[in-house]
């Protein structure tokens, strides 16, 4: 039996508003083991923590129960407090009387009664707690960044800058990501290429950074500090180290009608291609679905024209195994498909385009060399309609669009509208919106300029239908403020498509055992306090894979993720989670049930000698858990028929004591 101290937190009025905290403290006083019980306004404050420390000394406490907010919030805080008071940090249990009590129950009597029961359960558990000491494991001082967009680039540069090796795995032939496709960036209107390409070059030239382009992660094993990752380098049929990126092969390639992904299919590329001039690595790649040599064994022109001799039609996919201490996910986003939005006639008319396509149309390196021309006839559009929130904030139609706000569309639409009016003052520009959301530094000023200085016509309301008619696009819309229907004959309609996480994120999350939300965005360990960490130790989040983000936000998160990685890699040893499984070898049958269900391969078997009570010796096979590999899920504890396997911190007896306390 422990000497337990109970500390009931008011959390201001958050708890005290619906729970009689004094009554809780008083009721728990008479629980077995409890020698001290009190309440205080904010247990997590310095004063509250000091109160715990003093009580530990004065009452010789061996266990602490804090009745407060969720353990997900402050368990770590109070464990530190316990440690500072000279107790083992794992002698602390939290009764969650805020999130799971005071905030969900309205009645004081009900709340108080439940808080007491939750407190009793915590006391019952802490009475069975044992001091735990975390195990140690070494750290591989190298980081892996998955995704080579601006998020991945920034993270990699920052980690490398601190002196650690970084590998970037990018599924496309070049790094750069979505930002490389942009023209100008809001709200400063500097050219995306001008600020991105120097960073790409930095990456290429950094000795600490390796780029695995045209590659993907196929397997992840291990755990924080010790990941074993398999990277598949797709065959690009060009020897990367030899190719100089001269482009001679591109000129001679006879297959010239391949839709160019980089320009979103608005122009063509060759079968052997370099996505864009500033690509990094600047190496050609043969598209095996388009190349006649690879498909039919006929052609081979690129090989003939390549003076460097870089072409290799026999190249095979290569699998590389590497060890990493930390993994950063920077898999980014894509605009959603417009297939389901027939009302905007996207598939019927070439002149209905997405904002990203608009971005390419206005880009000097784009299909129209920066001139804003209609894709259908190459004519100048005189009336342009921008439609916001296409598939965003789409509450009613979850299968069509997304419930969330894509966050970046308001600003880039303002940018597009402003730039159009700036370059082509004779153009009428309409923007249809639900709300204009401009929370960001200089964002609202930017939007106001578009309206006030550049005369963009912002109309609150949604476009109902776009109908191609002759060379016009008939736009039917409603103006909610004027409360009337509008009919606009537009030359070009630009859809601000919602953005969604890249499709590669879901399988990656499974490999990483990192959790995702229902929209396939990676979940952070804590939305406020640990926004760049995944709940899976050693996995960090950078950029739009975690949620819609603009460039400034992405870059700051990228830096934050990098600093977390640096903090991890700077350690020589990691102290693990001590709440791991362990087997009582006297009870263990060696039957392998536990190892069969262990997701981490943490359990091995050994033949051990046992001295029996009758003084004979018997050799038996028993399970052994590697505490550095075990993540403490507890699957093995239930698979074990003899109950030999138990989980520290969540032991059978502890959980049953909680059950008993709750049910009594």
């Amino acid at each position: 039996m422990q000497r337990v101290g109970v500390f009931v937190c008011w959390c201001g009025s958050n708890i005290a508003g619906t729970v009689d905290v004094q009554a809780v403290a008083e009721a728990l006083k008479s629980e077995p083991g409890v020698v001290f019980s009190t309440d205080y306004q904010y247990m997590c404050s310095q004063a509250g923590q000091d109160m715990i420390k003093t009580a530990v000394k004065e009452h010789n406490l061996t266990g602490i129960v804090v009745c407060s907010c969720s353990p997900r919030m402050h368990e770590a805080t109070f464990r530190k407090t316990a440690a500072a008071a000279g107790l083992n940090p794992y002698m602390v249990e939290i009764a969650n009387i805020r999130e799971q009590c005071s905030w969900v129950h309205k009645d004081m009597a009900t709340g108080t009664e439940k808080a007491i029961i939750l407190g009793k359960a915590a006391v019952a558990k802490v009475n069975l707690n044992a001091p735990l000491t975390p195990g140690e494991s070494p750290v591989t001082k190298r980081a892996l960044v998955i995704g080579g967009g601006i998020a991945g680039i920034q993270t990699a540069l920052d980690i490398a800058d601190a002196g650690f090796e970084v590998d970037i795995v990018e599924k496309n032939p070049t790094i750069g990501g979505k930002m490389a496709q942009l023209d100008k960036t809001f709200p400063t209107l500097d050219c995306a290429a001008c600020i991105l390409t120097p960073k790409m070059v930095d990456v290429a030239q950094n000795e600490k950074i390796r780029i695995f382009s045209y590659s993907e992660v196929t397997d992840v094993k291990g755990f924080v500090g010790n990941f074993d990752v398999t990277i598949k380098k797709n065959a690009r049929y060009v020897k990367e180290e030899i190719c100089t990126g001269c482009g001679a092969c591109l000129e001679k390639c006879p297959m010239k009608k391949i839709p160019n992904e980089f320009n979103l299919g608005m122009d063509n590329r060759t079968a052997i291609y370099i996505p864009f001039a500033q690509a990094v690595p600047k190496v050609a790649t043969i598209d095996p679905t388009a190349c006649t040599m690879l498909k039919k064994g006929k052609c081979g022109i690129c090989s003939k024209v390549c003076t460097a001799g870089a072409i290799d039609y026999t190249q095979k996919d290569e699998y590389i195994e590497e060890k990493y201490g930390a993994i950063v996910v920077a898999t980014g986003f894509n605009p959603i498909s417009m297939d389901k939005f027939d009302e905007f006639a996207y598939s019927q008319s070439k002149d209905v385009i997405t904002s990203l396509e608009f971005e390419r149309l206005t880009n000097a390196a784009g299909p129209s060399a920066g001139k804003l021309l209609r894709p259908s006839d190459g004519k100048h559009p005189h009336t342009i309609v921008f439609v916001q929130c296409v598939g965003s904030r789409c509450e009613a139609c979850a299968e069509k669009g997304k419930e969330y706000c894509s966050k970046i569309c308001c600003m880039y639409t303002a940018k597009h509208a402003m730039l159009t009016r700036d370059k082509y003052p004779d153009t009428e520009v309409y923007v249809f919106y639900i709300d204009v959301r401009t929370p960001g530094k200089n964002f609202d000023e930017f939007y106001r300029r578009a309206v006030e200085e550049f005369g963009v016509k912002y109309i609150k309301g949604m476009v109902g239908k776009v109908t191609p008619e002759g060379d016009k696009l008939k736009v039917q819309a409603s103006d909610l403020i004027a409360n009337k229907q509008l009919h606009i004959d537009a030359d070009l309609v630009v859809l601000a498509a919602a953005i969604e996480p890249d499709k590669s994120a879901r399988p990656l999350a499974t490999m990483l055992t990192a959790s995702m939300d229902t929209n396939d965005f990676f979940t952070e360990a804590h939305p406020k306090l640990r926004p760049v960490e995944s709940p899976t130790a050693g996995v960090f989040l950078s950029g739009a894979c975690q949620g819609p983000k603009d460039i400034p936000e992405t870059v700051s998160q990228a830096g934050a993720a990098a600093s977390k990685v640096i903090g991890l890699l700077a350690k020589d040893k990691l102290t693990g989670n001590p709440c791991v499984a362990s087997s009582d070898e006297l009870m263990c049958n060696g039957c392998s049930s536990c190892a069969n269900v262990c997701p981490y391969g943490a359990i091995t078997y050994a033949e051990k000698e046992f001295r029996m009570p009758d003084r004979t010796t018997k050799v038996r096979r028993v399970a052994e858990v590697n505490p550095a590999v075990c993540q403490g899920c507890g699957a093995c504890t239930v698979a074990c028929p003899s109950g030999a396997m138990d989980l520290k911190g969540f032991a059978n007896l502890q959980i049953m004591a909680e059950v008993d306390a709750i049910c009594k």
Partner: protein
Amino acid sequence: MQVNEYKPLIVAFCCNWCSYAGADLAGNNRLNYPADVKIIRVPCSCRVNPMFILRAFQRGADGVIICGCHPGDCHYTSGNYYARRRMTALFSMLDYLGIERERTRLEWVSAAEGAKFAATMNDFVQQVTALGENKRLEDLRCKK
């Protein structure tokens, strides 16, 4: 005046990563559900031993619900898949023994589904309340 209304006792085992966080989110969003639900935090739904469930019934629980991450989302990759098989087997056995199947439930609640958590608990409490007291798996010695 309110007559002594029957209040069931519900034990909810919630995995730390998704469902417990989902319950926290329900709290954050002030989504009400009956105080009859008492949550026990476990690292993963695969930590829930059938013995814990029987124990809860023995000690007077009227319903037991196990909540874990959605299939595919387990923090430990596969824990909830094992939990699903185990609970399927156990619940089916309890049903075979004539114990009301409505007293047990397995639900997937993600960390983002505070609303689902509250709704699930409201629904489960209602379902168990309709059944009344657990008589078939009770241990009279534990009666108050």
